[in-house]
């Protein structure tokens, strides 16, 4: 139950949630909700791992896993944007498809041996910083550092650039954007696919860096849904999503560590004594998500903020009648 270890592990596994959440933020800011994140992460995970096993090259695995997520999201984009189907249902269908496909592709992978992982890094100067050094800059996978970079870049893109202005406009008022010549369809397609790429990346991060190995559905085990919840918690802001991702992962690690020792803060550890109680520990992350959503919804009601106005709504140009 060492705090530094917990936080460092939190940052590491939190990177998975971060990638998935940032991808979903892009898609939802453009007005398209993609509930297929779990399925896309599974596909990314299995393709990345399988490629690494087959070729021995984790970088290739990373690339293909990321692309696999993007490819799957194209389906969602076509069906919801061009065919104007219900976004929620399409996302669920994508989850089914991704889950099933991943099971099929990963059929023999659980028996695969160890693979070469992506390298981990320790940054010399920064690692020596008090408190933050050992957590953020010591012995973390390259992908974690990529995660650090993604946050400010994504923020800058969304809030300070012309493409970001258009992204926000399309998610809030597609009619306004369309009238001014912004290609709403193309933008929505783009950002849905960006979301898919990030989800694939998140899956690849699991199997190539954080918890290598293929364990069927358990490889991702609901993290896709948690990422979507984090997007709501973050009120569609990238910085807040990062905080949520790291914090949640740290809590998850803590719940695991709590089960080990015989004594906990001087008292006998109930989870050590009675192992069935650990099932309740397993529930905590999910209960936590619900609590967080309730708290955030109260805030949203009070501050009258909320989701991008056009989220989940089709855009059809030239629809007559207002």
């Amino acid at each position, binding site marked *: 139950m060492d705090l530094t270890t917990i936080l460092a592990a939190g940052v590491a596994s939190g990177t998975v949630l971060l990638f998935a959440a940032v991808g979903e933020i892009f898609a939802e800011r453009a007005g398209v909700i993609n*509930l297929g994140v779990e*399925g896309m992460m599974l596909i990314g995970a299995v393709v990345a791992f399988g490629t690494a096993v087959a070729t021995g090259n984790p970088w290739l695995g990373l690339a293909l896993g990321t692309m696999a997520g993007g490819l799957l999201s194209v*389906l969602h984009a076509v*069906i919801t944007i061009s*065919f*104007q*189907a*219900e976004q*929620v*249902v*399409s996302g*669920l*269908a*994508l*989850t*089914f*498809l*991704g*889950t*099933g*496909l*991943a*099971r*099929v*592709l*990963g*059929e023999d992978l659980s028996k695969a041996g160890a693979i070469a992982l992506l390298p981990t890094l320790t940054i010399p100067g920064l690692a020596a910083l008090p408190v933050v050094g050992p957590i953020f800059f010591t012995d973390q996978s390259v992908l974690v550092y990529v995660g650090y970079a993604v946050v400010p870049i994504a923020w800058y893109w969304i809030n300070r650039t012309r493409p970001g202005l258009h992204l926000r406009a399309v998610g809030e008022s597609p009619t306004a954007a369309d009238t001014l010549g912004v290609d709403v369809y193309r933008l929505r397609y783009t950002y849905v696919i960006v979301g898919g790429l990030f989800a694939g990346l998140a899956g690849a991060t699991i199997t190539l860096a954080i918890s290598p190995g293929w364990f069927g559905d358990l490889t991702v085990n*609901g993290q896709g*849904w948690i990422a*979507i*919840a984090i997007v*709501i918690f973050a009120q569609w802001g990238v910085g807040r999503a990062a905080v949520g991702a790291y914090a949640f992962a740290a809590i998850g690690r803590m719940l695991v560590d709590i089960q080990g020792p015989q004594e906990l803060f001087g008292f006998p550890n109930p989870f050590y004594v*009675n*192992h*069935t*109680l650990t*099932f*309740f520990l*397993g*529930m905590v992350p*999910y*209960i936590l*998500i*619900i609590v967080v*959503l*309730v708290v955030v*919804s*109260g805030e*949203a*009601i009070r501050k009258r903020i909320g989701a991008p106005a056009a989220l989940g709504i089709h855009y059809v140009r030239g*629809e007559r009648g207002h």
Partner: protein
Amino acid sequence: MTTSAPARQPEGERVRLARTIRLERRLEVPRWLPVATTIGAIVVALVISGIILWFAGGDPIAIFVHILRSSFGSLGVLSDTLVTATPLILTGLACALAFRMRLWNIGAEGQFLMGAWGASAVLLIPIVPAGTPSIITIPLMMAAGMLAGGLYGAIPGILKAYRDVNEIIVTLMLNYIAAGWIAYWVFGPWSEAGFQLTAQFPKSAWLPRLSDFASSVPAFGGLTVHLGLIFGIVAAVVVRFLLFRSGRGYEIRLIGDSPRAARYAGINVARNTVIVFAMSGALAGLAGMSEVAGVVHRLQQAISPGYGFTAIIVAYIAKLHPYGVIIAAIAFGALILAGREIQPSGIPAMIQGIILFCLIASEVVLRYRVRIERRAA
């Protein structure tokens, strides 16, 4: 979405006719079209699945024939199909009812589990002493199952109604929580001899089966169709009546179409949200009870191969109509049953995803129609 613009012709030359294909918003939908598109979508989905199976090295035709034979080929397997379909009917109704009000109940799986738990609790706490006859035990288990499922369903309902919390995430999280809950009881207090399941239920807690009457009707020998099927059919009739012949059903349909109009009409949307979610949960809970009392006869971890999720597709295929749910549930019961033997094991889930995709993609046909016209260039 138009394609091709006619080319300009210099004056004096013969005017060429160009054909343009255009998608035009439909004004009215012929009554037969939704059924036709549903069937068409399923056919397309099966074809796509067949192609994928072929790539995976299987023989699609043989597999499909095998599925049909092992689901409908004889009275015995037909009975097995109906047994698998029974929980699907109830969970399908649960989803259909909720979706009618645009409440995305993805938690039918968790509500199913809680219903199973509630029904088991009657016997395992125990709430009734050991020798109680069926006539008391069974209705009590039904009530407990529906109550547990209903309360569990009310949770997302209340959160949605009064705090507008996204019910998709909440119900999903509750699924995981329910699984953990069951695991605790099955590994812990109710564990039988340290194994990961409970003691078998006494015969008084078993739902009657057709095979129970084999002595009077020999043809019923070995048929495991149980009373749960009747629950499902009765529930479908009740839900249909509720939706189309009752004031509450009118409110549900109105809210589902336009929550703002419903509020304007004086309908209490928040209260209806809770009530409908609770009803949905109760139906799924009853499914759980029917499964443990009719098939498994004990509580254990693996009592659902994803009934709560397949129910979503069942509801969708049925276009949210209660009677359609029965038909779709039987079809998917067949798929699940046969799917147990298909390798690799992810194929049935994939097929379900493909079917759902094709279904929602096919709805574009209901919104637009193709118009081919000839125009002078």
